[in-house]
């Protein structure tokens, strides 16, 4: 019972926020970015708390080739558009720790 309620609460808050089925999946996806963009670090670019539209447009730009870079144009092509949007939502709402 408690567990069911907890899951519903989790789903409502994060699921609605990210527009993604499972918030833990988005968390896992975001963790894959943290190797180069670790929590609370400034190198090379902090992601937490950045404006959502800026994050989304850059990720989309890397993916569609309109934005140049070193490794990100390749990495972004490995993620779906929905995943990139979920990541933009996630990092925009995350607070730097």
């Amino acid at each position, binding site marked *: 019972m*408690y*567990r069911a309620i*907890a*899951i519903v*609460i*989790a789903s409502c*808050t*994060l699921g609605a*926020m990210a527009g993604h089925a*499972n*918030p*833990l*999946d*988005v*968390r*896992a*996806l*975001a*963790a*894959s970015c*943290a*190797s*180069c*963009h*670790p*929590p*609370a*670090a400034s*190198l*090379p670019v902090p992601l*937490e708390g950045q404006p959502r539209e800026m994050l989304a447009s850059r990720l989309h730009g890397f993916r569609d080739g309109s934005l140049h870079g*070193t*490794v990100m*144009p*390749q*990495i*972004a*092509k*490995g*993620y779906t558009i929905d*995943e990139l949007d979920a990541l933009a939502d*996630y990092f925009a*709402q*995350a*607070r*730097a*720790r």
Partner: protein
Amino acid sequence: MSADVGRRCALRTIGSAPLLALPGCSPIPASRAKRRIVVVGGGFGGATAARYAAMWGGDSVDVTLVERDDAFVSCPLSNLVLAGSRTLADITVGYDALARRGVRVIHDSAVAVDPERQRVRLARGDDLRYDRLILSPGIDFFYDRIAGLDTREARERFPHAWRAGPQTVSLRRQLEAMRDGGVFAISIPRAPYRCPPAPYERACQVAWYLKRAKPSSKVLILDGNEDVQSEKALFAKAWNDDYRGIVEYRPDCVLTGIDAATRTMRFEVAEDVTADVINIIPPHGAGDIARSAGVVTANGQWCEVHFLTFESVKVPGIHVLGDAIQVAPLMPKSGHMANQHGKVAAAAALAALAEQPVNASPVLNNVCYSFINDREAAHIVSVHRYDATQQTFVSVPEARGVSEEKSALDGDYGFAWARAIWTDMLG
């Protein structure tokens, strides 16, 4: 990761499970209800798994990391220490921050695993009980496959320096002591081995040092494989241009023996080679503790895992990650990849304890920088998505890429990458 809201949700769902398991009982103290995750090995994979298990598990779990060394020494960038443009101190990071982030760090050697009783035996300390075990054992070497490497003295004289640390320093000292006009030989084992581009980066780094300090000297690459295993065009260009007359590459040189008295290397087919400084990277496989746990399943060398969870295909309750695993197709054995494994394994271990489903579609990425000299590097990138039909990770073709040429920008990013990933794993 860093979203507090995400952590709270995870705590709620996971934290409620132990209470449900005891209907009708009065609540037991939280400390006794905690589940135990033990991580063995504090490298790129294990330190990451420990940090993320503690971060995501919060108060629901006790996370213990067993690591034999006092500090982490990074293999990435260690070739620059050989070249003398960086020091060992530059690539060494302590475990203090990890301890402050809720991981209990025990500096000891795990010597045996008892999967039945769910215990890890330590060399000095008491046995550790676990509910989930995460093994990130790195590699150990098959010295017996090379005649003449059977003594400790021989292994120190012909160091692998394939685990960064004392052997990195000792190989550097040998290079410093070598005469101008001497030959440095590096022996590469058959693939798969730890970090595909690293032997070729090492050849560049040693050549960079010799070109400046001892310009009549040579670097001889003796590859146990039929061709360069990673970024061939890039490395070939460096050897033909930057290090022309210094670096020589020879394929199909499978090392079978070393004569210490004459410093002569013997091969399966190729002619004998005599050199002044000899760097032997012996064939290797999963670290020895994996053998004790019974999780070495592929060719007596690597550990097969279920890729959704990194749980051993053989022993339930034990996750294996990093260089020790039998990799998916086109998945490199790299520090970055081990760091990515660590997060999937941490989430899977927590999900198992909470009896929750795991992420059904994990995505991993890999970024490696190879330094051609003291400041210029090149990158290789890939993304690996879990394929439910094949039950393995599949490399996304359009996401694969390498630098067209070395650059100072990639060098800057390479150094930034190292600082970033050390922060990600060690806090």
